């Protein structure tokens, strides 16, 4: 990884930021209707421009603080795609509800900026700032419907718990700093301070597992997902999880390598690093198994689509966390299956919830199983797309969801964990039952009454593009981060760490 200049590396982030600020500046000068007509387009166009910039962004790092590599590029593209798709859902929801004010679009742009920063971070402090940028924007979006009790409940729960876990993450970072003298993701541990490093890494992992909604840090997820407007649920579910996993991946690979690395690098951990990672692995794997089982089986009982997706998000966090199962001694850690899964997950989640947002009517009153009865017939584009997204959640081929589950669980079997894979698959079948119930509902019969729709163009394009990508990337997966792993970064090419603090005897 070579040092590169600020501008091409961070151009995508800056472009989205500019789009968000422009939307914010333009907002007071527009009539209410015009706000919902123009602002989402400004933000969505900035995201598309950012995606183009991301394709051309160089691979390298900036002052050891931010970096770009093939995996990060794909994650950023997925986040930008998911966010742009969600803008359509948000536009439709707000214009249908005749919501006064258009700051929400700028907030969504800020959340995207934060998540792009999380993905790019090589340093815990840079990461923390990005997390808070994203989280504050998302909190505001979750509580958008101020007059609704469940919205307020969701906001409070999410905010308070989010603040606590931010504190836990920071505390972990502080301990890690004490153990290594550096806030980077990955640094040499000062001899004798391994226990601080372990505790620090454990607390940082706990903070990140909260962000991605893994059991037992999941209690906020179903409530926050239900309280938010459907379109916001899509945005939040898709992008925050990707950012959280990017952080967890950077932490994990950094621990293995002892210096910051590319997310698609294959790293053989040293014996010392394995000593540190094995206890952590236990935490992560137990969390993964619990998440898969709890998420999928609880999803079976839900009637509200938002709640169903909330539990399904927990289950998906479980599958993704399985990527952190350690290989045998002497073998390389390779997180690329995780990035593959995350790309598919982000596209499908944003697409599915945007489609539901389009179908759900004023105040999202019809987002439950009964409200979606027969809607596939009435709105075939959304129905077909939703079928594809749900099949992807269920891990059915030919969708990205299948390739993701396939790669992650294949790797687990490869490392000897075929029992874990079997549990994961059986849970997946239960989850499939939940999704298929929705598919059946969508296509059975004719709708009783069809609720109002808002402005549709952006929504249609977003949903259709996501659906096509979820299938087409399976037919032609070459561009995905699947080829040879990236060469590990040489410590020498990174900036030297700050001088370690004097060892206290």
């Amino acid at each position, binding site marked *: 990884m070579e040092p590169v200049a600020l501008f091409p590396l961070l151009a995508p982030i800056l472009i989205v930021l500019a789009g968000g600020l422009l939307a914010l500046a333009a907002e007071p000068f527009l009539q209410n209707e015009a706000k919902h007509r123009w602002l989402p387009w400004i933000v969505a166009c900035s995201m598309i421009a950012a995606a183009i910039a991301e394709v051309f962004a160089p691979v390298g790092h900036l002052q050891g603080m931010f970096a770009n590599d093939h995996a990060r590029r794909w994650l950023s593209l997925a986040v930008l795609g998911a966010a742009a798709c969600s803008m359509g859902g948000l536009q439709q929801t707000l214009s249908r509800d005749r919501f006064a004010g258009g700051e929400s679009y700028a907030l969504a742009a800020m959340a995207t900026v934060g998540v792009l920063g999380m993905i790019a971070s090589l340093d815990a402090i840079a990461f923390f700032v990005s997390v808070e940028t994203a989280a504050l924007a998302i909190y505001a979006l979750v509580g958008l419907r101020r007059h609704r009790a469940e919205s307020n409940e969701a906001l409070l729960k999410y905010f308070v718990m989010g603040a606590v876990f931010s504190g836990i993450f920071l505390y972990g970072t502080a301990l890690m700093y004490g153990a290594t003298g550096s806030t980077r993701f990955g640094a040499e541990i000062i001899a004798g301070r391994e226990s601080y490093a372990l505790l620090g890494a454990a607390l940082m992992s706990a903070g990140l597992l909260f962000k991605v909604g893994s059991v037992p840090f999941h209690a906020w997820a179903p409530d926050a997902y239900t309280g938010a407007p459907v379109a916001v649920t899509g945005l939040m579910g898709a992008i925050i999880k990707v950012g959280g996993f990017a952080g967890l991946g950077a932490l994990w690979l950094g621990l293995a390598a002892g210096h910051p690395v590319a997310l698609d690098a294959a790293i053989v951990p040293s014996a010392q690093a394995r000593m540190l990672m094995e206890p952590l692995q236990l935490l992560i794997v137990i969390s993964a198994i619990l998440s898969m089982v709890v998420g999928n089986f609880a999803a079976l009982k839900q009637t509200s689509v938002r709640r169903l997706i909330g539990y399904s998000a927990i289950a998906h966090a479980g599958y993704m966390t399985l990527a952190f199962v350690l*290989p045998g001694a002497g073998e390389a850690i390779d997180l690329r299956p995780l990035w593959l899964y995350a790309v598919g997950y982000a596209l499908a989640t944003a697409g599915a919830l945007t489609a539901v947002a389009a179908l759900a009517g004023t105040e999202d009153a019809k987002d439950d199983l009964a409200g979606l009865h027969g809607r596939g017939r009435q709105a*075939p584009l959304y129905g077909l797309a939703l079928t594809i997204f749900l099949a992807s959640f269920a891990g059915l081929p030919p969708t990205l969801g299948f390739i993701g589950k396939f790669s992650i669980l*294949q790797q687990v079997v490869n490392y000897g964990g075929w029992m874990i894979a079997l549990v994961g*698959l059986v849970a997946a079948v239960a989850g*499939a*039952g939940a999704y298929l119930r929705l598919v059946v509902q969508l296509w*059975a019969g004719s709708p009783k009454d069809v609720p109002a729709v808002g402005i549709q163009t952006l929504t249609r394009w977003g949903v259709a593009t996501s659906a096509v990508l979820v299938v087409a990337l399976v037919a032609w997966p070459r561009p995905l981060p699947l080829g040879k792993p990236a060469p590990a970064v040489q410590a020498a090419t990174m900036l030297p760490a700050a001088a370690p603090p004097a060892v206290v005897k």
Partner: protein
Amino acid sequence: MLLLAIFLAPIAAAVIAVLAHGKDADQGAGDAVHRLGLVLSLVIAAFATPLALGHGGAFDVAWFSVPGTEAVIHLKLGTNGVTAWMVQLIAWLTPFAILGGRGVAGGRMREYVAAIFFCEAMMLGAVLARDLVLFYVCYEAMLIPMLVLLAIFGGPERRQAALWFVLMTMLGSVPLLVAIWVIIAKLGTTDLAMAIEGLRSGAISAGTQNWLFWAFALAFAVKVPLVPLHAWQARTYSEVPGGAAVLLAGAMAKLGVYGFLVFVLPMFPQQSAQHAQLFIVLGVVGAVGGAVVALAQDDAKRMLAYSSLSHLGLVVTGIFTFQQAALDGAVIQMVAHGLSAAALFLLVGAVEERTRSPYLDDHGGFASKAPLFTILFVISALAAAGLPGTANFAGEFLLLLGAWQSAPWIAAVAGLSVILGAAYLLTLVQKWCYGTAPEGRAEITDLTTREALSVVPLLAASIWLGFQPGVISAYGGKSAGQMAEPARAAAAALKAGPTPAAVETAAPATAEK
């Protein structure tokens, strides 16, 4: 390239059907989509026909690689006699599925045709696949269109039926996927031929191989279905609309049998031979039990479901005898049962469409009111019952002959299913076609030309193949024989007892463990 074209053409056809313009609620547009689908499916079937003559070659291109292993998943397609005849069955049944759907689909022809084409593509992909992952992808993906067909066009209990069907089939496939991962992890390949080679070389211990065998067998046993795993079948068949049943009962169920022939026997000859008795018994129980249960049904579609259970049970029994005659019979019967089941489901579907009732006791006297229906129904029933002169006779005769060569008791018991088959099918014919209509029932109208045309070619094919079964067995039976050869040898070795040679070959496996 021909194989790739056959695989991709139905997908393209599905897309064309979706994009076909016009308000689909309007009758003319529905008819147009229907005609378009019919023409496209016939063109695809015509392109697939050369496969039966041994053409086709192979297609192989790298698809994607799995991180962490050497394995590169290939888009690899290949053909042999069994594959070729399965392709014929699927490709030629599709036009009839579309023809049979015009009545049920009504204003939603676009969805119907698209789902049928997607289903066809995935079934063709599954039979042509020579890569385990590609096979799995297609094998699972065919569930989605069938689920949509059930959900949109199914009977009153369709939600239950759809969930039973999809969840049981998926649960059956879970161990299959884990088994494929284990093969990737241990052998570093997903290529079928290389996996067979790797398994024979003893790179995987005997215990693991045993486990893999059960994983594969379970997935296919659910699909066939074999006896303890048949709970989804009657539920699903009785709810699925007539046209889609053509594909479901006619072709999709055969994929389980196909899996046993093309994957289980060549990959695990030793285990297949060891457990052959069990599968023979399960097959016989299915064959006889299914027939007995069919006799007790008062719903014609459920009766046909159990009839399928019975016929395919016999096929599995035949396969696990490893006799050449039975294998010839198995391939013939797969095609023959596809044709006769499709014809019966279409005819029962026609009755249900007119009267909303598939029950035996609700109808009577069709012979005078609907003579055309009666003629075709009687011929289909007799074909299904295995009347000499139909392909079913050739298939069942060879299956029983092979069973007799293996052990006379199998043929003696399994033969009961043929007699019982005649009994329930004739009961159905007698109740519906003769006697008088029950009080208060609307008179039935005879088949329309379209409906008659959708059945006649199936019966004609069945009769033609009944006189020329060699067309199938010469190529299909030969390939089946080749694939079963290692299993037959292993069974012979087992029967002969632990000869020095057998001990010698068994030794490396145990030593490795």
